[in-house]
C-alpha cells in the first residue's frame, strides 16, 4: 500500500479478484495522484474486504475498482452490501475495465453494475480526465467537500 501526503480527497484504488493486470493500475495511480487525490493504491488481486478495510482506515470518499480479465461481474457483486454492513454506506463506488466477457453493449453493462450499487461505470476507452472531473464533482455533491 502506498500513500502520498496530499491534501485532496482520499480514494482507494485496486484491481479486484484474481486479476493481476498491473500496468493499468500503475497508470491509474499516477494519473489520479497527479490530479490531486490522496490515492491509497492496493495494487492487484484485491479482495472486497481489503478495499473496505483501507477505506475505513483512511476515511476514503471513493473506492475505484478495476477489472480487466472479464470476470468483473462475479468479483464486483456484493461490494455495496458489504460496505453498508461495515458502516460506509455512502462511499462512492467506481468501476471500470473489461467488465464482462464478449462484446456486450455498454449500456447493458452499466445498468447491471449500477443495479449492483456502483455509482459510475467506465469502459477501457473512457477518458481519464473526464473520470477525474466526475469524481471531484461526485465527492463534492455527496460529501460537500
Amino acid at each position, binding site marked *: 500500500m502506498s500513500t502520498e501526503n496530499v491534501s485532496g480527497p482520499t480514494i482507494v484504488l485496486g484491481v479486484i479478484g484474481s486479476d493481476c493486470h498491473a500496468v493499468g493500475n500503475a497508470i491509474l495511480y499516477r494519473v489520479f495522484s497527479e490530479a490531486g487525490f490522496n490515492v491509497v493504491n492496493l495494487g492487484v488481486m484485491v479482495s472486497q474486504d481489503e478495499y473496505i478495510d483501507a477505506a475505513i482506515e483512511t476515511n476514503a470518499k471513493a473506492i475505484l475498482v478495476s477489472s480487466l480479465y472479464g470476470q468483473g461481474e462475479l468479483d464486483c457483486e*456484493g461490494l455495496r452490501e*458489504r460496505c453498508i*454492513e*461495515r*458502516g460506509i454506506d455512502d462511499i462512492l463506488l467506481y468501476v471500470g475495465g473489461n467488465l464482462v466477457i464478449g462484446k456486450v453493449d455498454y449500456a447493458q453493462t452499466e445498468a447491471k453494475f449500477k443495479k449492483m450499487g456502483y455509482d459510475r461505470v467506465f469502459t477501457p476507452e473512457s477518458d481519464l480526465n473526464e473520470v477525474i472531473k466526475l469524481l471531484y464533482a461526485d465527492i463534492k455533491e455527496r460529501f460537500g467537500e
Partner: protein
Amino acid sequence: MPHVISIDIGSTYTKGAVFGWQEGDKAFRLAARAVVPTTVNYLPDGYRQVMASLEELCRRSGEPFSETEASFADIPVYFSSSAKGGLNIAALGIVPALTLKAAKLTALSAGGRIDRVYAYKLTRRDVAALEANPPDIILLAGGTEGGNEVYVRHNGKMLSKSSVLAQRSVLVYAGNSVMAEEIEEMFAAKGFEVHIADNIMPEVDRTDTVKAREIIRSIFLDRIVKGRGLDTVVKEIGHNPNPTPYAVLRLVEAIYLKRPEMGEFMLIDMGGATTDVYSCCQPVKSIENVMFRGLPEPEVKRTVEGDLGMRVSALSTFKAAPYLAEIPGMAEFVEKVDRDTSHIGVSETEKSYDLALAGACSGEALRRHAGKLRRVFTAVGEAFVQEGKDLREIRTVIGSGGFLSRLHNFQIPDILKRGNTADNFLLVPERFRYARDKDYIFPLLGNLADNYPLLAVQTALDGLEYSENETVIPGVENIGRSSSRSGASCSCRDV
C-alpha cells in the same frame, strides 16, 4: 430395570412415553405410550392425564421397575412444550443477504419461528404493523464489529418509541457491539426488557450465533412456562421444558455426531401448521469450479415454513404450490380442512388429496431449504456460483410428524425439478432412501438426547422404516462437478 419418561405438550396433543433400558442396552425399550388432547386452558390437566395413563399401562403390563423406582413418581421426567408451534420472532438486519440472513438463521436454530423480517431502516408503517401484532421476540441485528451504527440506532429509536415492547415483545440485540450500550440504555430507560448478545455477524463472512441462541431459548422457556399453568408442571417435575423444535434439533444433531455411518441426512417434520426441515451435511462440497457466495451455511441447519402444513396452513400451501389447483376437487378439499382443521381424510379420494398436500408441503419445504447453483462463464471457462446449502449427496430423507409417520411408501414428488433451468439448479438430494419415523417418536426422544444421547439415537434409528425404492431426482446429478465440464468448457476463448 431403570426407566425414563418423556412428555411432549403440543398445541393439539399431549404425548408421553415410558422407556426402559438395562446396562449394556443399545436402545430404549418402549414400555408404554399415551396421548390425550392438550388441555389448552390449563396444561397440567393434560399432563396429569398422560402420566396417569402411562402409570396404568405400566401397571397392567407388569412393567418391572427397579428398586429405586418404588413409585411411578420416582421415574425421571423430561418434557417439551411447543407453545403454539414455537415462539414468534421478528428478525431485523441491514442487508438481506448478510445480517438479516444471519438473524433468520439464529432465530430458527434457537427453535423459533420467523414471524416477520425487516431489512435496512424500519418505517413508521413497519412499526405500526409490529404494534398491531407484537411478536414474542424482536431480534435486532446489523453491522459487523466496528461497522455500521446508523441503521441499528435508527431501528432502536423507532422500536423504543413504539408500544411494541410495552405490549409483549422482548428485545434481543445481536448487532455491532459498539452500539450495545446505547441500545441497552435506550430501552432500559423506558423500562423495557432488553438482552444483549454477541454480534451474530462479527465479520462479513462469519457468524457467531451461540450467545444469541442461548438468550432466545431462555426467553422461550420463560414464556412457555408462564403460560397456562406450565409452571405447576415445572414445579412437579423439578426442571424446565425444552421447546419442542429445539428437542428435535438436539436429536438430529446427536444422530449426526454419534452415527457417522448414517452419512448425510435430512428430516422433514410436517405438522398441521408448519413444515420443519433439518439437514445434516457439509454445506459446500469441494468442487474446483464452484464459488460459494453469501453467509456460511451451518452444517446442521433448521428451517421452518410457517405457510406449509396439512391443516391450519392448508390454504397457504395450496397457494404456494400452484400445481395443486390442477387436481380436480382439490380446492374444495382445502376449503373443507381449512374450516375444520381436525378433519381426517376418510375416503380414498380424500386420502389422495391429503397425499398431494403432503407432497406439496414436503417438496416445497425441501426446495426452500436447498441451495442453488448458477452457471457463469469466466475467462477460464465455465464455472458455478453456489448460494445456500448443497444437499445433493444426502442419501437418507426421514419423514416425521403425525401424517408422514403413518404414511407407507411416501414419495417426495418431482416438483423439486421445477426450479431448474439451463443455468440454474437446485441443490436438492439427487438420490435418496426415504424413511418414516414409524412410531412418531422423534420429538419424545429429542427430550432425552442431552441426557441419554446413545440410547435416544439408536432408538430413533431402530424406529425408521425405509421405503423399498430409491428416489431419484433427475437433472441435478453431476452439474458443477468436474466431470460435467468436458461438454461445455472454454467456450469463451476469443475474449
